């Protein structure tokens, strides 16, 4: 029972009694981890209860959003784009950014240049996820043919990150394009080395790694709740950028609480050095992501105009004296 935003002012809309938030137990989702750890979301949400669900892959998160099991989620940009295009704009809206950077191609010793990748097997976290698309499109620029059915000059084998570590240690695969902290784990625990840092492929080194999305219908029904969520995230990102030394401990605390196991100090330090936290979703990068996904065969061409609704974020940012972020013509600002 919620009225639409017909009157311009969504006065009829009420705050949701509960907000279901999904995220990964992962360094690139630190704004979620810290926000929960420090109670920043709860503080902003007030009477609205927050309940969380931990995922380990983007597709499952999107499925939960589609099925209405969660209302908002921290997620990589590729699944968000994919869902938006497949649903013809009906599924999700990006309301803020969360993290940028922190992905790289790591390979075994003995491979020092792109030319030596021919005939190798490389892993990615999941078919069609942000890193998978990145690897495929980068390989294409290097002149390699790949296929999502597994053939080609370089075999890409989407595997779970934990499996990837094992497969790499066993010598079954020659490298992987991974997000943090797996890049750091492979480097520090399995003696891999970074061949390509994804940051080097983007202008200014800025590319989106994690964004905050909400169900479109939820946004229409409960804009205040979403605004509170975004406000909590802004606080969280600000805290992370203000306390770089305490961040590792706070993140690890949540990891232990959620996944039962934390990360070693060197891994988390190396990981945090590569990930930047920012509420700017880097909208300008999204069209490039689509082009990459389409050429890699994991995505379909489609319009993402309307994917962004940064109006809530910008009102918060400007109210606190910050600068607004741009949707680059892909939605409300």
């Amino acid at each position, binding site marked *: 029972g919620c009225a639409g935003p017909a009157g311009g002012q969504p006065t009829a809309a009420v705050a949701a009694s509960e907000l279901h938030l999904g995220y990964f137990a992962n360094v690139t989702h630190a704004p979620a981890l810290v926000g929960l750890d420090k109670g920043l979301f709860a503080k902003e949400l007030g009477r609205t209860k927050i309940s969380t*669900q*931990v*995922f*380990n892959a983007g597709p*499952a998160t999107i*499925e*939960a*959003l*589609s*099925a*209405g*099991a969660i209302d908002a989620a921290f997620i990589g940009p590729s699944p968000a784009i994919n869902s938006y295009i497949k649903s013809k704009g009906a599924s999700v809206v990006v309301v803020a950014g969360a993290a940028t950077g922190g992905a790289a191609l790591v390979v075994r010793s003995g491979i020092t240049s792109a030319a030596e990748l021919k005939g190798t097997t490389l892993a990615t976290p999941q078919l069609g996820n942000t890193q998978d698309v990145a690897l495929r499109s980068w390989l294409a620029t290097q002149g390699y043919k790949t296929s999502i059915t597994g053939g080609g000059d370089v075999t890409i084998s989407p595997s*779970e990150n*934990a499996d990837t570590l*094992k497969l790499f240690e066993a010598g079954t695969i020659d490298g992987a394009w991974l997000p943090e902290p797996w890049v750091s784990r492979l480097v520090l625990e399995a003696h891999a080395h970074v061949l390509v840092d994804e940051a080097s492929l983007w202008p200014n080194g800025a590319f989106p790694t994690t964004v905050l999305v909400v169900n479109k219908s939820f946004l229409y029904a409960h804009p205040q709740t979403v605004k509170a969520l975004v406000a909590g995230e802004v606080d969280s990102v600000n805290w992370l950028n203000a306390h770089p030394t305490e961040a590792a401990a706070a993140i690890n605390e949540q990891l232990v609480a959620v996944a039962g196991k934390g990360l070693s100090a060197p891994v988390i330090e190396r990981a945090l050095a590569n990930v930047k936290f920012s509420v700017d979703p880097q909208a300008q990068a999204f069209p490039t992501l689509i082009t990459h996904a389409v050429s890699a065969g994991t995505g379909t061409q489609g319009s993402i105009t309307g994917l962004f609704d940064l109006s809530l974020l910008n009102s918060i940012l400007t109210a606190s004296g910050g600068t607004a972020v741009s949707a680059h013509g892909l939605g409300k600002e």
Partner: protein
Amino acid sequence: MPPEVIAQRDPELDARGRTDLRTLEAGLDALQTGDVSSRSGVRRILGGVVPPVILVIVLLLAWQLYTVVAHPRPDLAPGPLDVLGSFGSAWTSGRLPVAVLTSLQRGVLGFLIAVAIGTPLGLLLAEVRWLRRALGPLISGLQVLPSVAWVPAAILWFGLTDATVYFVVLMGAVPSITNGLVSGVEQVPPQLRRVGTVLGASRLQLATRVILPAALPGYLAGLKQGWAFSWRSLMAAEIITVGGTIGFGLGSMLQQSRELADLAAVLTTIITILAIGIIVELLAFAPVERRLLRRRGLLVATAVGR
């Protein structure tokens, strides 16, 4: 000539004839329904149970001996004692009981829903000829489809929720149950229908007093297969759909043990799944089926272990 006249024509001869016939028939009946001396039930069951149990014990001993003598990598070939230990710890930690309860509850609930859907559907198909001709092949076709193929679609529709699990279980079990009922009704001997008609049964009486009881064995077979499919589909669904709000079942435990590379726990779970399958079969279906078949004389008194 009215019947009474015939009947009274020679009452004395008649009475003599009757007594003589009575003795003759009694003699013949005694000969033809002689004692079918069968081995005692307990001995028969023992004869069926003992050999496989001995074999299992021998296999376990050989396995233990192998791990002791050959010292294989314990993560790739844990011994029976490791598995036992893993079972013990999974049990005391409460993980195993939770998983068993969750899975059993889902399996039973899913099965019951499947029965609730499959039975009226089966009755409808059995009764309405054109519907059976049109829908029957589709339902038989669905039986060919591995229900695990529904998992990805269900996940997209229902997300990682229990609804996904139930959907997959239903897609596995409903066709079996429906088909069992339809073929049970189809296999009712036409003779029995004729008997019902001749005895003057109405359409409803024919259905409830003759056709349904006669179709029961086929229906029961369908139920049994439906349960097997429920259980299979449930395990598949639980293994694939981890995460989300999905509760922790045996399939989840299997997948979790795999992720922890804990082969002993994997084997513990496999054995538990097997044990539950066998126990449900033995406790829930076997007695009903045996009673039903015995009442109809369809159960030949053969040794269990044949």
